[in-house]
């Protein structure tokens, strides 16, 4: 009894002492994150937790510019094969250890060499890391690599405490120790992830919460219901159809920003022999007819309730790397019919594989209806996610409704998909001149030159159409009106730093 009373009184005392700053931010996530180890992590939603837990060398701003975070500055060598990074001073990890060049070297090497690491591909050209002095590292590359800074602004740039990582090995994800504004407290699988303020954070004045709790609630209706009943302060990925509701409710605010990813239809043009058997995969004119039969504005309206930007490239029209020389084509059913006639197939039939999620289903049905007007007979095949991955990888599909969450650097949205034999190249597209252009776009650091190269790539790839890009969704965040300072960044990650309750 005595013990319990003492504990209770201490708790009360603590609460009183903490006073007005005992504040918790409760965020509703659309999925349960996978393992919380930056080296092994594989999901989009995990990055939202990392945004509060693990600082990275760089970050991006809302215009997709690289800004320093754990780094304070950088410089490329003359031949662009070495990147020297100056590190911020006075940064410590959650366990108190100093963040220095040795820690950065350790982390980068961990990302490159640990068994099962998902960052190896991102850091492929990284040959070695040198510690120049405790506040400076040099990354030596085997060839110039322009997407490198963007990679270091994501999980590949997250620095972990060498002491904790060494001790935990591959179990590091159970109790991650990083250098972010919040430290790990506990995680109950599929229920919650709890983080608390890290007292010695290098930018602690920008942190206005004591606790952040992430609650995975997959059903968007239930997620919003939780916000409305007051159990959550913030929900990410609000359903497009719920936007009017939130807008008309004075208690809540809505933030939206166009994503860096895209939604599109991937067509099997060479992944397996199914490509040759079907006119869609075999003849580019049929693919052109399909694109011309689609009204992107209509698709956006019906499938996403208007909450997306129509697009025809791997980056959004508002992106700096969008090729203005290849604008979005308007719907033209007559021309589509003429093309089909030219190709000798008046009523081509193909199977459109789609996941069982809501928006993929709606897209498939709308595409089916629109394409029918040009003469296409589209059969919809709903496939469970796990099965569809396998089938896509084996090329057992004709067309596939597939989205990509997007990367800050345009290379991340096209290389893996259009370069020969890359893991995400489900279309099976392979053209040596495109490969060459892609390789050049990754090795030159000159912005103007890169833009020109992407325009050249667009000219070819948009004619071949291994992927028919449809639109770029809006990230939709709904949160309590008491929350201020929420920054929307196109990567869709919730950044708690800078936000505060009024």
């Amino acid at each position: 009894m005595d013990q319990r009373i003492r504990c209770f009184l201490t708790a009360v005392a603590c609460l009183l002492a903490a006073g007005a700053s005992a504040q918790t931010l409760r965020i509703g996530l659309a999925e349960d994150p996978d393992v919380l180890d930056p080296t092994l992590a594989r999901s989009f939603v995990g990055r939202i937790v990392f945004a509060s837990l693990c600082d990275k060398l760089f970050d991006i701003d809302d215009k997709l510019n690289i800004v320093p975070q754990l780094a304070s500055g950088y410089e490329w060598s003359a031949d662009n094969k070495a990147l020297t990074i100056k590190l911020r001073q006075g940064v410590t990890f959650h366990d108190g250890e100093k963040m220095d060049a040795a820690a950065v070297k350790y982390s980068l090497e961990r990302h490159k060499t640990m068994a099962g690491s998902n960052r190896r591909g991102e850091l492929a050209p990284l040959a070695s890391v040198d510690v120049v002095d405790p506040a400076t590292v040099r990354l030596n590359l085997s060839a110039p690599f322009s997407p490198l800074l963007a990679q270091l602004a994501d999980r590949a740039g997250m620095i972990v405490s060498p002491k904790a990582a060494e001790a935990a090995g591959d179990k590091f994800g159970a109790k991650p120790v990083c250098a972010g504004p919040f430290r790990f407290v506990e995680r109950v699988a599929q229920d919650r992830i709890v983080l608390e303020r890290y007292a010695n954070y290098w930018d602690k004045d920008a942190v206005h919460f004591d606790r952040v709790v992430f609650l995975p609630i997959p059903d968007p209706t239930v997620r919003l219901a939780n916000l409305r009943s007051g159990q959550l302060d913030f929900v990410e990925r609000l359903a497009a159809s719920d936007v009017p509701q939130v807008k008309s409710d004075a208690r809540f605010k809505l933030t939206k920003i166009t994503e860096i990813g895209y939604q599109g239809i991937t067509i099997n043009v060479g992944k397996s022999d199914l490509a040759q058997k079907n006119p869609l995969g075999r003849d580019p004119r049929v693919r052109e007819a399909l694109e011309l039969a689609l009204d992107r504005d209509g698709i956006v309206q019906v499938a996403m309730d208007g909450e997306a930007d129509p697009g025809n490239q791997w980056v959004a029209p508002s992106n700096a790397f969008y090729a203005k020389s290849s604008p979005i084509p308007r719907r033209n059913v007559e021309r589509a019919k003429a093309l089909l006639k030219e190709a000798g197939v008046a009523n081509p039939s193909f199977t459109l594989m789609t996941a069982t999620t809501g928006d993929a289903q709606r897209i498939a049905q709308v595409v089916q209806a629109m394409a029918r007007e040009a003469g296409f007979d589209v059969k919809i095949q709903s496939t469970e996610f796990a099965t569809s991955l396998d089938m896509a990888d084996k090329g057992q599909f004709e067309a596939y409704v597939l989205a990509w969450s997007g990367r800050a650097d345009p290379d991340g949205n096209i290389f893996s998909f259009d370069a020969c034999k890359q893991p995400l190249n489900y279309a099976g597209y392979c053209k040596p001149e495109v490969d060459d252009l892609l390789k050049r776009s990754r090795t030159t650091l000159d912005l103007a030159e890169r833009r020109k190269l992407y325009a050249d790539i667009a000219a070819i790839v948009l004619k071949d159409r291994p992927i028919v890009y449809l639109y770029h969704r809006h990230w939709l965040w709904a949160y309590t009106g008491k929350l201020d300072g929420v920054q929307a960044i196109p990567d869709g990650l919730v950044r708690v730093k800078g936000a505060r309750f009024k």
Partner: protein
Amino acid sequence: MGTYLIRRIAQIVPTLLFVSILIFGLQQLLPGDPAKVLAGEEQDPAVIAHLRETMHLDEPFPVRYLYWLRGVLHGDLGESLRMQQPVRALIADKLPVTIELACIAIVIALAIGIPAGVISAVRRGTGWDYGANVVALWGLSTPNFWLGIMLILLFSVTLGWLPASGYVSPREDWRANLAAMIMPAFVLGNAIAAVLMRHTRSAMLQVLSSDYVRTARAKGVKERDVVLKHALRNALIPIITLGALEFGTLLSGAVLTEQVFTIPGFGKLIVDAVFNRDYAVVQGVVLFTATAYILLNLIADVAYAIVNPRIRVH
């Protein structure tokens, strides 16, 4: 009696073995490569190869089964690759939650089902009977996920009386815990209530027309006492033993209810594991539930056999 018991216990082991082979086999037959599912967005071939090795995916079925079986016999149910946690720990975490949900659901079911069944039997053929029937049947006839969403809309969003989802441990705050559990337990309990009502009704009907009760009536015992003291007490035993068998129904119901109300219990764990091809979790959880179910079955059968020595067939 003793031989009966021993025989029944001896039957458990081969049954469990069959369960494990059934679920193991089914999983291996599922199309889709679990390594690809777990490999995430980037689908890095090196990561996929590493996962295939860790999960022994390239070895033949019997070998994989034996690996797993050996682990089970040592108390190791494997590890969830998606969450990097031992299955045993996941079960220990989630089990109390689903058990609590199930218990409250059973209480609600008993509170609705037994009175409805008694009234139905006593006032057989009248409007009471009809009414009680419909009330209890309502639970069986409504898809529980739909009922759940409707309830959330009414009690959480419109009235704001109850939380929409989630779970608070009773040790942390028992009031919040109850508030979070009451809707899902009601949704679950509804279906069971119908079954209980029917059992109660038919058991009561049987007892009420028995010689024992006729004698009591002839002796002038008040009708109310006949029903409550004599008939119900006798009818209760088969009701309760049959109720134990509803454990399986409860778990099936829990699967969807936990999805809708986002309760971190067994049901949600297993559905997510099937969709993510997280084999170890599915196998471990199903084995565990099957064992529990079989044990409950055994207890129910033994209790029934004690009561009615004629039913010792086999």
